[in-house]
């Protein structure tokens, strides 16, 4: 049987006992924490205060003896509980007894004099312990969490610990956010990153000075960060989208939306713009990346598409110094776990593949490199096969990186074994030439979005119309199966599709009737009965230049 003793007289005695015991202790504490007094004069004594939380956690309460007066210092809020008498009664203590109630530096002083009306009935005399506050905040969606961080210092510190973030991840309180990069405004590579909160269907803008002027980079998301890889920036007109004279980057920048901060990681070996990226989360510590340096392949016939003459190649290719730098033999790069983990101890090991892209002399590249987060290093791997063509899309699926070329070849890189294999799949229907297919991976399944001609109703004379279709590759039998048809006419030949868990996000941007429009669609691969869903239309692009259609890139992050 539980005895409820708060409202009986015995409770009063007990409370007074508690008060006297801690009297001495608290007196010294309250002296240390004497605060400036507030003007308002308030109110009753909450019954909660004296007995509560004296044994750690939550608010520590103390009482001074009758001799010490608290000058005036009362907060403007009173305890509504006293008024309503909801199970509380004021302590019948001598009038000059003051109860100091402080929680983490907040000092409350109550005096039994007057009871003041609560403004708007909002002030509540409750002091929640840290772990309760944490428990409530961990559930908040990102926007709520951001606001919570601004409430007070304690909340900010509580919600920015790695442990807190891990709790959010484990409890699945995160929701997907889609980040749209590469927007161009008035000829300038905008500093704005557009973030779309899928759950609340709301767009936000993030201002980032760091990527100003950079364009044609590729992005990929890893845990709660977005990696910005490569890209170009204009040499003559800084900040502008000017492709006449550009510097191509090797650098990799990491964007953390949660803290709106950027940091750099190791740069690639080759400068690339629009490299094809893929991310692979590695569970095994034993996986090593098989490196293979460019020197070895020089003897092989290179794929040259685009007719770039050898005369204008990188003059440093034949330099002796370079030869000496890269050993001839195929070496295995083993990692040494570093003491300093730039990412954090909760993070897992992941690899980023950067394949192809466009090089410093505007030449299409067939070199590839892999980044290992464990040692923060890029390693060059075997080049794409000679007859493959120019890679236009790729993604990791089941430990293999699949690459698709402009000439409709499919290859896969086995990371463990360290070589490319050709995949002979049963061919798709003829696709519309200008539209390069995009391959996406979701839940270890491989998909492709491709634009093909579709018979127009079978009527004679009716023109074929182009449709965008979603296909899935059966990884065992290697045949493509049609899954779904996209509802929108394929106006954007550079539509971006990204896979995240079981969803495929599609972003299309194009100019029509003098306006730039944007469409965001989503498809759930786990539910075959569903179709593409329009989640957002024309909310972002109206102020952007049409060149944003070309430069846009998208990453989905769970925050």
């Amino acid at each position: 049987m539980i005895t409820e003793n708060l409202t009986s007289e015995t409770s009063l005695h007990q409370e007074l006992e508690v008060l006297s015991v801690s009297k001495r202790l608290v007196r010294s504490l309250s002296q240390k924490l004497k605060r400036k007094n507030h003007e308002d004069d308030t109110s009753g004594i909450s019954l909660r205060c004296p007995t509560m939380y004296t044994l750690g956690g939550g608010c520590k309460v103390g009482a001074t003896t009758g001799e010490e007066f608290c000058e005036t210092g009362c907060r403007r809020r009173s305890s509504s509980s006293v008024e309503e008498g909801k199970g509380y009664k004021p302590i019948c203590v001598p009038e000059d007894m003051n109860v100091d109630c402080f929680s983490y530096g907040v000092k409350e002083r109550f005096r039994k004099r007057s009871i003041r009306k609560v403004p708007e009935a909002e002030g509540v005399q409750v002091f929640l312990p840290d772990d309760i506050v944490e428990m409530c905040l961990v559930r908040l969606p990102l926007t709520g969490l951001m606001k919570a961080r601004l409430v007070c210092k304690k909340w900010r510190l509580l919600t920015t610990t790695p442990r807190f973030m891990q709790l959010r991840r484990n409890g699945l309180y995160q929701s997907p956010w889609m980040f749209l990069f590469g927007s161009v405004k008035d000829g300038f590579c905008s500093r704005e990153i557009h973030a779309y909160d899928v759950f609340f269907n709301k767009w936000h803008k993030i201002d980032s000075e760091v990527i100003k002027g950079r364009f044609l980079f590729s992005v990929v998301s890893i845990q709660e960060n977005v990696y910005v890889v490569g890209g170009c920036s204009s040499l003559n007109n800084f900040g502008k989208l000017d492709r006449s004279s550009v510097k191509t980057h090797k650098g990799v920048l990491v964007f953390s939306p949660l803290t709106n901060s950027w940091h750099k990681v190791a740069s690639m070996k080759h400068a690339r713009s629009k490299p094809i990226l893929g991310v692979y989360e590695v569970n095994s510590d034993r996986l090593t990346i098989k490196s293979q340096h460019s020197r070895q392949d020089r003897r092989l016939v290179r794929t040259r598409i685009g007719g770039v003459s050898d005369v204008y190649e990188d003059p440093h290719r034949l330099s002796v110094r370079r030869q000496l730098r890269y050993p001839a033999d195929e070496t295995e790069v083993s990692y040494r776990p570093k003491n300093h983990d730039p990412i954090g101890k909760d993070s897992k090991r992941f690899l980023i593949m950067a394949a192809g892209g466009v090089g410093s002399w505007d030449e299409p590249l067939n070199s590839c490199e892999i980044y290992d987060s464990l040692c923060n290093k890029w390693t060059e791997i075997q080049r794409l096969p000679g007859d493959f063509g120019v890679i236009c899309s790729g993604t990791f699926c089941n430990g293999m990186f699949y690459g698709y070329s402009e000439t409709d070849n499919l290859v896969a890189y086995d990371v463990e074994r360290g070589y490319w294999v050709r995949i002979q799949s049963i061919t798709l229907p003829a696709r519309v030439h200008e539209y390069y297919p995009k391959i996406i991976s979701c839940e270890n399944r491989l998909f492709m979005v491709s634009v093909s001609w579709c018979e127009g109703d079978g009527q004679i004379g009716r023109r074929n119309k182009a449709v965008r279709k979603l296909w899935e590759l059966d990884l065992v039998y290697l045949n493509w199966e049609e899954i779904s048809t996209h509802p929108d006419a394929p106006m954007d030949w550079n539509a971006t599709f990204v896979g995240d868990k079981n969803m495929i996000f599609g972003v299309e941007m194009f100019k029509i009737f003098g306006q730039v429009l944007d469409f965001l669609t989503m498809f759930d691969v786990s539910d075959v009965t569903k179709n593409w869903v329009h989640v957002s239309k024309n909310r972002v692009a109206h102020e952007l230049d049409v060149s944003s259609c070309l430069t846009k890139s998208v990453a989905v992050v769970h925050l």
Partner: protein
Amino acid sequence: MIADEIVLSFPNITRVTMSKVLEYCNIHGAGADDETRAFDEQFVDVDQKTLFDLVLAAHDLKIKMLYDIVGERTGDMMKGKTPEEIRIIFNIGENSCVDDHPLQKELNPWAFE
């Protein structure tokens, strides 16, 4: 005198709160189903004061399920409110927990749009 009943005392929990907690436990004793879900929704639809009392009671008594739902509801209370409003609700003094972090406002400007 030999006591044949065990007496537990919870000085932190009022009678009203305790009776609510007991009600919750009785309903959920049989396991979760639609009825309990409906009960839960109605159960947490209380004023702030009672809610906070329940949060603290659940915390002290270590009743996980109750703790979860009242915690969630408390989190819900914060949704859509400005930091100032949140400070008022949770009774955080403006002068006390002032954050002197210099980049406070600049840190996450995009959360407010």
